[in-house]
């Protein structure tokens, strides 16, 4: 049975939360559960912490410069490169049929000497050796539990050491991705803006005996049936009602966790599976899933989620946009794919030994909401 009720008094750091939903399904996980609070995601991007000077070799080239380099790598002479660029570089990137440069860039992959789509087959493109990020402070968690290692980071806010977050190295020296945590880089802003109105919301539900106190809780991630609702000023609207997506694929996204000093965190590191807008992440999976969240003074829940993510899933939004990605938000996708292979740190291929997943941390914002189980009624 699903019931709806008001919240008890909440701890000061969670005090502005008023939305409360008791979902009967939680009884299965915590028989003593007496209250739940739900939230819907209002922002989503990579948890970056880019500072001046953290790319000692400079940033990776912008797309026009990269295209010229790619032409040279393909064997074009400097004069030919100049002429091709001159003739085509300002052309319409979508006009594949009439733009010689676009055709060359798209078909620059080589498999057995045959030209193939570079975006669909990034390993068929010669590694352009993009520069990687060299910062020391990165958001995230000690995903493997091995503590400080030569490649680990320190979290800039929790100051936990031994942070595993290799995706930060891959993206950190590309202008489109560089940002601070709560800003979101240009690429992510572009992607999120494109998907946020149409993508069904991700939902987060926290359940516990008494959410006003420190103690054990359960945290469930899921999806709603509606897109995020907004205020007149464009910000996500709090306290709206959403229908929970009953898709059984989300049923296992439930984790043990705790509240400690107003900080909610996952303590049982399982597997996260979610679905997002096809433009971004049709599938979004994280192994050894970690999460930490806290309410800010504006009543917005700030969330870090992290885990090991298949690099092919990350590459999807970059590669599927084909050459449009170059000009819009992701210069040199095949080069990024090579970087991800280089820094992948999890799930080695049993045959080749190549790691297939990379440690990654994402920053989410969420607002209080009512989540209703449509299958069980109100």
């Amino acid at each position, binding site marked *: 049975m699903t019931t709806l009720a008001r919240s008890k008094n909440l701890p000061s750091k969670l005090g502005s939360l008023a939305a409360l939903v008791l979902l009967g399904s939680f009884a299965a996980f915590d028989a003593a559960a007496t209250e739940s609070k739900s939230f819907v995601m209002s922002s989503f991007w990579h948890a970056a912490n880019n500072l001046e000077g953290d790319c000692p070799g400079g940033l990776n080239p912008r797309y026009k410069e990269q295209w010229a380099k790619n032409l040279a790598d393909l064997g074009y002479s400097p004069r030919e490169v100049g002429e091709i660029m001159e003739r085509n570089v300002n052309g319409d990137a979508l006009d594949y049929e009439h733009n010689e440069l676009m055709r060359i860039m798209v078909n620059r992959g080589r498999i057995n000497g045959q030209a193939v789509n570079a975006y669909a087959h990034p390993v068929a493109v010669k590694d352009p050796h993009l520069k990687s990020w060299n910062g020391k402070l990165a958001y995230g968690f000690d995903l493997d539990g091995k503590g400080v290692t030569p490649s680990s980071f320190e979290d800039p806010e929790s100051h936990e050491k031994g942070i595993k977050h290799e995706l930060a190295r891959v993206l950190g020296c590309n202008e489109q991705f560089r940002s601070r945590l709560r800003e979101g880089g240009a690429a992510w802003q572009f992607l999120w803006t494109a998907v946020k109105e149409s993508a069904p919301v991700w939902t987060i539900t926290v359940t516990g005996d008494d959410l006003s106190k420190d103690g054990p809780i359960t945290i469930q991630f899921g999806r709603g049936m509606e897109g995020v609702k907004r205020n007149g000023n464009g910000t996500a609207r709090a*306290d709206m*009602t959403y229908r929970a997506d009953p898709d059984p694929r989300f049923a296992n996204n439930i984790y043990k966790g705790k509240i400690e000093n107003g900080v909610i965190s996952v303590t049982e590191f399982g597997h996260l599976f979610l679905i997002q807008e096809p433009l971004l992440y049709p599938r979004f999976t994280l192994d050894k899933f970690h999460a930490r969240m806290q309410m800010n003074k504006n009543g917005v829940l700030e969330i870090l989620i992290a885990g090991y993510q298949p690099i092919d899933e990350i590459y999807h939004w970059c590669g599927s946009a084909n050459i449009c990605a170059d000009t819009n938000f992701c210069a040199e996708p095949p080069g990024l794919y090579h970087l991800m292979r280089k820094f992948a740190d999890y799930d080695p291929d049993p045959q080749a030994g190549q790691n297939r997943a990379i440690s990654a941390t994402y920053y989410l914002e969420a607002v209080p909401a009512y989540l209703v189980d449509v299958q069980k009624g109100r």
Partner: protein
Amino acid sequence: MKRRLLLSTILAIGGALTTFADARAEAGQAAAASDGAAVMRRLTPEQYANVIEEVFGPAIELGGRFEPDLRVDSLNEVGSGRVSMSATGMAQYYLMARSIASQALSEKSRKVMLPCAPASAQEPDDACAAQFLNHAGGLLFRRPLTESELSIYVKTAHEGAVTTKDFYTGLSLSLASVLSSPQFLYRQTTVASRPDHNGAYTLDAYAKATRLSFFLWNSMPDAALMAAAEKGELNSDKGVAKQISRMLSSPRLSEGVRAFFADMLQLDGLSTLAKDSVLYPKFDTIVARDAREQILRTITNHVVDNRGDYRDIFTARTTFLTQQLASVYQVPLVNDVPNGAADTWQPYTFAAGDPRVGILTQIAFVALNSQPGRSSPTLRGKALREVIMCQKVPAPPAEVKFDIVQDTSNPEYKTARARLTAHRANPVCAGCHKLMDPMGLGLENFDGSGAFRTKENETVIDTSGELDNVKFNNAVELGKVVRENPATASCVVDRMVAYGLGRPVTRTEMAWVDLVKRAFAKDGYKIPDLMQTIARSPEFFRSERRTTETQKASAN
């Protein structure tokens, strides 16, 4: 060609303006008469839209803007008998008239609208034009056209058709002239030819029909009411009672009740209500629009659909919500429609123990009577006194400083109660604030946008107060106190009488109003019964002598 068309248009506008100027003078004189004189009221925007829909169908787009309403004695309906019309306002009415006429006689609509076809579409056809204008004009004027009126409008159609070489364009110009005339824009109050033994006059049958239909339905008389007027049935009490009974049982009664309460509660303020989007991000134009609809749905459902006790609107937990409103009220509400589909209205009952009880806790009251960036116990108390209980609160003196009240971040005064207490230290302020603040403080759990809160500046809000020496602890108890206060029931009667008459109640009518109040109480405070009592009273149709004199003078 262009010149002739221009001349024809000027002829049409000129005709309208000339008659308008006469009528405006007449209306002005009538408004100046203060003692029971019937007034000629300008159609409100809603009434205008209702009439156009009745006559030409719902597809017609008005596409213009109206001159602002004037609130007199707390009612726009009273103000509608006092308003003038600027040249710009008249131009707007004429533009709307042209647009409506052109849509009504468009190629697609004319077959339905016209009872006849012209002999030639390129030439005048006076017979066909007369047939149409007589019918449409009768509906729009809420009475049969006089011969001279019809003759002028047929002539305008004729001239227009000759000038434009198009029968329909000519007819459209004439219809625009009808729609721009004071006989349409104002509700006339023609009186019967002979006074009663006291020297007062009663409205004639068509004026009675118009008064009844706008009072009960907020629109023009329907065919049955017009027929009753034509047959003389409205000249007898029995005939009037029969029509009132029929009208009260119509679903259109809800429209009349909505219009009355929208006016009484001054909900027009919601259409221009702005809030600080940083402090109150949820409050936008959609919430303001829905808040108006919520309170009107709540009231009509209670007093019309359920025939409930009027006073219970201050204590009822039942209402209607959209998802947008539900988010402000912080309650769940499933909208079982596809993404992007329009929000739907759903009945909702606030749970026992919930602080939302009655219309005083609705956004339409607490947000409307607040400042853009903070709540206002003073404004809320003032609205309670003036709007709900018909009591007068003096305006603040000119030189009063509001610094303490306005500074919500002053660490010395963390709550509105503390700030107002400090403000009342000024004896000049204390007298009037004592009338308002103790009531308004009971609603302090609702911030400037109407959202619930328990604290202000991290300080627990004290919502205790008193109304006319009756103490209460919170908004729920305040609702009960307001419900039981005799001024509450008395006020709605006063307002409804003034609303129906279009003017304040006169001294000589007070005895009648007292009787109406007693009947209201005896009938269990039922709004439809109250409307019936008022509408069946001879006083409802009576016009004192001064109006008669004015009309005679004007006619001469």
